[in-house]
């Protein structure tokens, strides 16, 4: 109860807790246990939440944050322990039960119908058993909610026309519409642009001031420091620490998360010395909606150089990467590697010219989850193992074992199905496949997204190693820390164009931030 007493001091007690018999908490989870087969996801976790409080749930991937919240939201049933909502013991068997108790959850991947309007999405599932849909009164209620919480979205706009931040507002409105007083947000900023993040944070502050309680799942320390009143750090399924934000620091939280001191590091940058290897000239690419996503982008990357391409998501990075991978044919422009022009729309040509490619969706683009680890490793070079039309399994096995060893992939063996591996090890499969063959150039799109600190460090190490071996590297990332840690030069993409480009040490976070928001640099 020590932590609870602590937060008593700092948490504004906005509402009275009269609706609970005699509990100061809106949520109390005591001694929660959950195992999946033989993996313990949560063991003896205690978690409390007060009215009007923003509590951050911090932890690496696999620390048990999402499991704990899925238990609270009724997706999973805990194997042990008890949950009390406003002092009353509950047992949820489905999210419906949780919603009925005033709990709302906004997932990382939204559960919206893109072709329907905001209003239709908000009322879906909460129309009761009535035969007719009363959209007029629903609209009134929605507008009132928007006014009260400052969530402005056009109720009649189809959801697909909204930016990600707007869609997230719809998700929040959906929960509020169902009278949620406890909101769980699962890594809500992972998909947002910096400006949208600001908007979300001010929304959360209004929600808290109005007496809603918010659980904010994250592994971004800076955001936790900015928005939360209190933070609960999970590690390996248990509560590693609980702190009031006013009494902790980013550095302490990082240490609590990973259990060791993290050096603040910036890798040594090199001046570009080598010859140009990867050259992108006037590349123009359309997106799936047939709109121009990449406009006349030209970049040159030299041997032994990392060019970090920053930018808010949705500014053409995905399409640029897909064009380089050969998955998408550009409208115009060209890509050359070692002065050989790559034919457009041919992944095979990219592979043949020794381009290491790390795609942003490793599950859907990079890997065959239902196939074995070794089958994933030979995806691009299986022709090397062809003997009169047959796949020579012994040499495939030898090759796979070699990579598993060299890249330290944790798996039950090369024949294990890829989907049984953890996220970090899945990324290691891709890294092993793409970086083991001494690539001439590497295009890495969001290579560390969703990975835990240890895996991130590993991936960074491998990318730097490729650079030191003379590869030209294009690092596309939305994580500015990563860009500044690794890059030799930094470029920013905004609305499909390169807004600015500069040596890392000649620019600053502030300047890059300006570029990211579309402000032209004066000195460029």
């Amino acid at each position: 109860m020590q932590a609870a007493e602590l937060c008593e001091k700092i948490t504004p007690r906005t509402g009275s807790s009269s609706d609970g018999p005699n509990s100061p908490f809106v949520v109390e989870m005591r001694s929660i246990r959950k195992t999946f087969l033989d993996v313990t996801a949560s063991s003896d976790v205690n978690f409390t939440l007060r009215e009007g409080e923003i509590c951050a749930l911090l932890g690496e991937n696999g620390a048990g944050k999402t499991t704990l919240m899925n238990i609270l939201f009724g997706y999973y049933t805990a194997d042990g322990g008890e949950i009390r909502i406003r002092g009353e013991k509950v047992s949820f068997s489905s999210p419906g039960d949780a919603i009925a108790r005033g709990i709302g959850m906004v997932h990382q991947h939204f559960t919206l119908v893109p072709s329907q309007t905001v209003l239709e999405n908000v009322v879906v599932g909460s129309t009761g058993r009535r035969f007719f849909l009363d959209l007029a009164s629903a609209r009134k209620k929605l507008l009132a909610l928007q006014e009260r919480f400052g969530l402005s979205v056009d109720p009649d706009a189809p959801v697909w026309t909204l930016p990600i931040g707007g869609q997230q507002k719809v998700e929040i409105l959906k929960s509020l519409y169902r009278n949620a007083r406890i909101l769980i947000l699962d890594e809500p900023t992972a998909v947002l642009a910096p400006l949208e993040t600001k908007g979300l944070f001010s929304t959360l502050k209004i929600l808290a001031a109005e007496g809603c309680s918010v659980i904010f799942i994250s592994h971004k320390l800076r955001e936790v420091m900015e928005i939360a009143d209190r933070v609960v750090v999970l590690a390996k399924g248990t509560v590693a620490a609980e702190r009031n934000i006013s009494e902790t620091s980013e550095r302490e939280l990082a240490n609590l998360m990973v259990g060791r001191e993290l050096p603040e590091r910036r890798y040594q940058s090199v001046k570009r010395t080598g010859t140009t290897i990867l050259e992108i000239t006037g590349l123009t690419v359309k997106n799936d909606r047939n709109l121009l996503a990449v406009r006349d982008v030209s970049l040159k990357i030299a041997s032994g150089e990392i060019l970090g391409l920053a930018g808010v998501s949705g500014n053409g990075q995905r399409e640029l990467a897909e064009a380089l991978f050969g998955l998408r044919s550009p409208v115009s422009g060209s890509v050359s590697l070692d002065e050989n022009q790559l034919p457009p729309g041919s992944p095979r040509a990219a592979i043949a010219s020794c381009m290491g490619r790390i795609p942003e969706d490793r599950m859907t683009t990079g890997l065959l989850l239902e196939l074995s680890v070794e089958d994933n490793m030979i995806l691009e070079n299986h022709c090397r193992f062809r003997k009169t039309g047959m796949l020579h399994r012994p040499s495939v096995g030898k090759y796979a074992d070699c990579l598993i060893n060299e890249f330290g992939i944790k798996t039950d063996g090369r024949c294990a199905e890829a989907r049984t591996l953890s996220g970090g090890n899945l990324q290691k499969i891709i890294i092993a496949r793409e970086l083991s063959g001494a690539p001439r150039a590497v295009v890495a799109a969001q290579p560390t997204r969703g990975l835990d600190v240890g895996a991130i460090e590993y991936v960074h190490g491998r990318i730097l190693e490729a650079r030191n071996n003379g590869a030209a590297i294009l690092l596309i990332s939305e994580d500015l820390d990563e860009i500044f840690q690794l890059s030799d030069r930094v470029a920013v993409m905004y609305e499909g164009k390169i807004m600015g480009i500069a040596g890392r040490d000649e620019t600053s976070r502030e300047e890059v931030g300006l570029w990211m928001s579309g402000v032209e640099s004066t000195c460029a």
Partner: protein
Amino acid sequence: MRLTLAKRAPLPGWIQVLVPVGAILVTLALSAIPILAAGGDIRLSYASLFRGALGTRYNFLETCVKAAPLTFTGLAAAFAFRAKFWNIGGEGQLLAGAIAAAWTGIHIGSLPPAAAISLVCIAGFLAGGAWAAIPAILKTKYKVDDVVTSLLLNYVMWHIMGYLLFGPLQMPGSSWPRSPAIAEAARFPVLLVRSRFHLGIVLAAAAVLIVWFINSKTVFGYRAKAVGVNPRAAAFGGINVNSVILKTALISGGLAGMAGVGEAAAIHFHLLMDISPGFGYSGIAVAMLGRLHPLGTALSAFFFSVILVGAQSMSRITGVPTYIAEVIQGMSLLVMLVALLLTEYRIKAVRN
């Protein structure tokens, strides 16, 4: 209390083998209901069914005869489904194969049997493959749904056959939709005396091994599996997805076509409107029951054949209509689908 489904951890290999066996037992238990409803005695019905299918040498060989076309159409479906090419057009491809085999067999003249039979087989295989290529091309070039096109082409081929049998392929002087007889040299030889155990059964067995070999040993088998699992990742890895789908369709359609070749050249010796009692459709169920594995497909084809052949004698002895065979086959597919669901998920009781 409510029941919900929860994802299960991967089960050990032996259970995967046991599942179809269990599914068959459950099917037989459930099929007792309609047999009882039809007034049959359960023990006598099943006894006569299995005796009728397996009890004597002749009956056993007849079961093999029926299993051959089911094996071919089952392999056709299994091979296509593995690459996520949803070939529901086995029936049409079978008919295409039968038409081509009959046409060649009728017009072959006086070739030695080995050459004649080879020609008939090649014609049937190519015709089936070509018919399956249509939905594959529509899918790869224009993104037309392959389930719909391959299914609808069955009816197109059936009517083409009708046109041929009432026109250019009709036996001269006959008013029945029936072609002239296939030349002696082009007929599949009977391999065992006092039976109809013909060359096509050996070919079906060979096809099982060939498909197994392609799937598990060749580079093409690897690529087809990759395309089936995740076409986007396969394309990312430099695999030409469209080419894989097209080749898969050619082989799958060819296998179904071979079922038609066997029926024309080994059983009927003529082309007839009712040359196939729906072997192409049954092949889909056979493949599912066989879990898309070629050896499993062969076993499930044999099981289907046992039911088909056995139902005849069951009907004679107990008076239960032969339609019960179709009920059992349909039931087996449903049970198998449920069993497959239960290998991936488990039922969980949730107390409120």
